[in-house]
């Protein structure tokens, strides 16, 4: 298979599509102003080609902040794209679609990946999707788009999760998650007084969450939201850690970019040397694959802001390009199998 990346910083879709022929699957990453237009243009340019799209920032070795990017697969993939609708309330209503699509593509765990772009209620969508995918060990990588809109097969949907099963006919697929943080200490924080619909975290170990965060890090209240770049929360799930970013302070509670549930066990995380972590990820991937056809990744907006603040974003993209054809998007939340995480990078590698 081959991966195509085209872009237009000025938002010209035709320009972004120059050089793309006979695509088997297209991912559109557009801007808020032109999303509907780009979806329609793309469908016109490549009718009937399976596609999914969202609003965000695309990248290969450069970032496209406010234009349009196209990531497409050619020569050796079989893809089916579709959408789960009404995700804020009942994504399971459309699970049968997904079930049929999975059967249609005759997916197997080692050669097929599910890529998804979600508009909202990510955790519920992932629970729903993985109730099906988990049984077949199908891996999932995806992210949250902006403005509550996604597209699938030339149509724009609100309150939906667009997905595509991408089958690599030439080899394996494998998903990865990169965490540039590690637990600060052995202090486990048990969440309670949460409000999952508002992503509110009320208490940790029975004390107000804000107070606990401040006491551990010795910081003022005004610094809490900035501190999340350095010290986000990590939700423990067995040996896995799902990063949770802090969005705002609300009284004695903290609102986050992901839902926190009563009885979730959290730890505070500490930022590591992210360049070293990125190199470790590359080494891990190279260890697993002798030949890489393509890498598609989703990077969190927080990581983009952090790297950009340190003038490291360009270097990071160039580092990732050592793997070969690397492209992806900056999302508002990342999906890795059944996990909805923040401040992470998830990716799928095609052999």
């Amino acid at each position, binding site marked *: 298979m081959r991966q195509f990346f085209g872009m237009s910083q000025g938002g010209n879709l035709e320009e972004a599509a120059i050089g793309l022929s006979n695509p088997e699957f297209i991912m559109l990453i557009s801007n808020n102003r032109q999303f509907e237009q780009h979806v329609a243009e793309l469908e016109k340019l490549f009718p009937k080609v399976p596609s999914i799209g969202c609003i965000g920032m695309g990248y290969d070795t450069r970032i496209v902040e406010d234009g349009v990017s196209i990531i497409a697969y050619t020569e050796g993939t079989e893809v089916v794209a579709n959408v789960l609708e009404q995700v804020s*309330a*009942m*994504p*399971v*209503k459309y699970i049968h679609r997904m079930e049929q699509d999975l059967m249609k593509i005759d997916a197997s765990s080692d050669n097929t990946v599910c890529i998804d772009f979600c508009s909202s209620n990510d*955790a*519920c969508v992932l*629970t*729903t999707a993985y*109730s099906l995918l988990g049984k077949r060990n199908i891996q999932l990588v995806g992210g949250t788009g902006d403005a509550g809109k996604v597209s699938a097969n030339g149509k724009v949907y609100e309150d939906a999760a667009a997905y595509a099963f991408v089958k690599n006919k030439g080899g394996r697929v494998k998903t990865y998650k990169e965490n540039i943080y590690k637990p600060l200490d052995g202090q*486990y924080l*048990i*969440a*309670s007084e949460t409000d*999952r619909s508002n992503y509110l975290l009320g208490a940790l*170990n*029975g004390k107000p969450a804000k107070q606990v965060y401040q006491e551990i890090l010795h910081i003022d209240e005004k610094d809490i939201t900035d501190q999340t770049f350095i010290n986000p929360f990590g*939700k*423990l*799930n*067995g*040996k896995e850690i799902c990063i949770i970013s802090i969005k705002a302070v609300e009284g004695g509670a903290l609102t986050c970019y992901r*839902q926190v*549930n*009563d*009885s*979730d*066990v959290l730890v505070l995380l500490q930022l590591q040397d992210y360049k070293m972590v990125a190199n470790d990820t590359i080494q891990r991937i190279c260890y697993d694959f002798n030949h890489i056809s393509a890498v598609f990744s989703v990077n969190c907006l927080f990581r983009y802001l952090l790297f950009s603040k340190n003038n490291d974003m360009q270097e990071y993209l160039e580092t990732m390009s050592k793997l070969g054809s690397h492209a992806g998007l900056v999302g508002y939340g990342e999906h890795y199998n*059944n996990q909805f995480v923040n401040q992470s990078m998830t990716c799928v590698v095609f052999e």
Partner: protein
Amino acid sequence: MLISKKRVRARKNGEPGLYPVVYVSKNLREYQKEMVSKEVESLNELRNIRLAFHKVLREDMKLKENLDTFHDVFASVGEISGQFAEVRDDITGTVGNVQQQVNQLKGSAEQVQECFEEIQNTFANFQEAIENIKKCMKQIITVADQTNILALNASIEAARAGEKGKGFAVVAGDVKRLANEIKDLAGVVEEGIGGVEHEAEKMSESITASNEAMAEGVDSVNTTYDMFDEIISAADGAETVQDKITATITESREKLNEVKQSFADTEAQYKKVMAHIEKARELGTMKGSMFEDVDNMLSQIAPIIEEYENA
């Protein structure tokens, strides 16, 4: 699960329709919430156990460190005890040297004593010689007296002989004068001998006193020598004490090692317990995600049914 149109129609006819499903799902969510609430309590308890056990482990570590300190103390005692043996060896060596010196002193003193005895013997001979000289002097005086008497008789006879005896009277007078001079000289000699005898007696007394002092010194040397023997004997006794200390330390170390082994066994058990606690904690964290999944799924039932009911 697809809801049939027949069931939806049933709701329109006044039957409960899908309400029981909504009711069940609502209750399941409440049970789930209750389970989560209990899970929070359970996790808190587990956290408390973990914290308490960490404390136990810290205390155990401290105790172990104290045991190690004991080990060090025993090692120090053993070392000091060893140093004590060195000191004992030094004492024995020094005492041996001193004893050697004392022996030499004793030998020198005995030689001096022998010399004193020789001096005393020589002195006795000297006193005897003086006595002989004194006797000789007495005989000389006696001879001088007799000579004087003879000279006097000769003078008388010379006087009787008259003119013819005048020459003899002169000789008799010379003899008498000579005898008197001899007598005077003998007196001077006797007086000198008396002085010599007096000084000799004083010397004899000094020699005797020195000899007695030397004898006392030799006695003291002998006593000191014996005391050194006692010191060595006492030092040897200390060696026994040191051996006992070493034996006690060895025994204590063995006991300490047994205690340490017990602690190592306990620690291994603690680690197992800790591993179980960690595993329980890890499983607890997975339950959180499972509760989330359950809630995510259950939360969809009511809106789906509501939608079907309204359709």
